[in-house]
């Protein structure tokens, strides 16, 4: 997957988790949780959804890597390059 494709997947997953999520004005470098007012359960659903879709096991110590949209893409790019 390209960086743009990964970004689209993340946005799609968040929109599915939270019908109120306003993705248009999102700053890709700021934490997702603060901008979207996600709680820890919502955030973990992103991890669960990635696990389900791509059989990706993301260890708990890596969760900070998923903080912002850009950091998600950076973290997932090597893991999803063959998808």
């Amino acid at each position, binding site marked *: 997957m390209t960086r743009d494709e990964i970004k689209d997947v993340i946005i799609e997953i968040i929109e*599915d*988790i*939270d*019908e*109120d999520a306003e993705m248009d004005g999102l700053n890709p470098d700021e934490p997702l949780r603060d901008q979207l*007012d996600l*709680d820890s*359960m*919502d955030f*973990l*659903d992103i991890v*669960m*959804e990635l*696990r*389900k879709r791509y059989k990706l096991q993301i260890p708990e110590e890596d969760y900070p890597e998923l903080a912002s949209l850009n950091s998600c893409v950076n973290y997932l790019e090597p893991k999803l390059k063959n998808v």
Partner: protein
Amino acid sequence: MADSHYSLIIIGGGLSGLAAGIRFARFGESVLILEKHSIPGGLNSYYYRKNFLLETGLHAMTNYAGPKERHAPLNRLFRQLNLSRKKFITHEQFSSRILFQNDLALDFSNDISLLKEEIAAKFPGSIDSFNTLLKVVTEYDPFTPKKWVSTRETLAGIITESLLIDMLLLPLMVYGNSEEHDMDFGQFVIMFRSLYFEGFFRPDGTIKEFLDMLVEKFRSLGGEVRYKSAVDSIVSDGKSITGVRLADQSQLSCDNLISTVGTPGTEKLLNDRQQEIYPLGQMSFVESIFILPSKNKSKSKYINDYTIIFYSLADQFDYCRPTLPIDPQWGVICFPENFHGLHRSDYFQIRITNSANYDLWKNTTKDQYKQMKEKWGRESRRVTEEIIGKFYQNVVYEDSFTPVTIEKYTGKECGAVYGSPLKIKDGKTAYNNLFIAGTDQGYLGIVGSMLSGVTMVNQNILSIR
């Protein structure tokens, strides 16, 4: 030899089982719900009589929250189940009343300020201590498992007027306390928040539409439900559960098992356990339903303006199993049509709930049972009419259910709607892959039991903290 294998089997298609099923189906592998009856819902289900759909259990849903209150339990639940909160139309209560000795009243609504004003007016000496209580309830963490703490002792340390304590406790106990006399303070906090801070509402449709929506969601995620499938026993190798045997003797295997039939009920299914560890709940109820035509509705302020009345004729309120078949001295009168914006129909209902003694209803002949139903129904009606005014002459249909009916249709031992007084907050059992969800895990009410299902799947099976 097992006939089929599932990653997760759930015993019971009530609200906690359905919620657990949806949550697991969303991220896990194969999942099967086994329901003893021909329809889902458990305690909160429905039946038909004379073309009326009658709901069981549901007076109102608690835990009201508008769609924008993102962190409220109701909205978190919807997100966890991937259900649209926007499409879920809700109607808030008018207001409800706690009525003692037929003249001392405290009204409350979904806005806590009404209850504060009422207490300031009727218990002026206690308003400061009530505000202290609000602070305690807001700051307390009821979800981390801890030792049992007496609510009555805690409240007595905050509020000096014991009548006010009894009045505040009546709705919270009757809508969710499995213990007699007292309740665990953590449970009190959960109930206080869900009734007084959040409040009552109804979905736009009946409980049937709500259940249909959940079953449809579960199936759309690949989940399977089997109705009329009573579990005969749980099969284990001593340490782990390997599967279940059904009443028709077919066997199913599973990696994990969730039981929503209560701890005593689960224990019964585990044939290898000799000792009974879990105490049976003592609190059960008789509920009478009256259907009346909306035209020529009486002018009674209660029938028109109130959603639920929690009454006690006595000065003191003691929540316990009565020594008579029912105790009409205290109870609940509910008007299920009295919610803002609910479309009017040609008929309206009055529902009366009184505490009841399971043993007296159980150990009786068929004829005596019928006579008891009539006699005590009359008594409960008489007390209700003293409070809300005459209504019985206009009733076109009536029905009632007793602790025995509840036990038969919901599988709750002794008809104890709130289950065993001993709750298993983390859902864990002596078996590493058997978990308890629903009533005996400890979260109550429709929203609570569904959150129980979700939380048990998250913590124990998907391993999310």
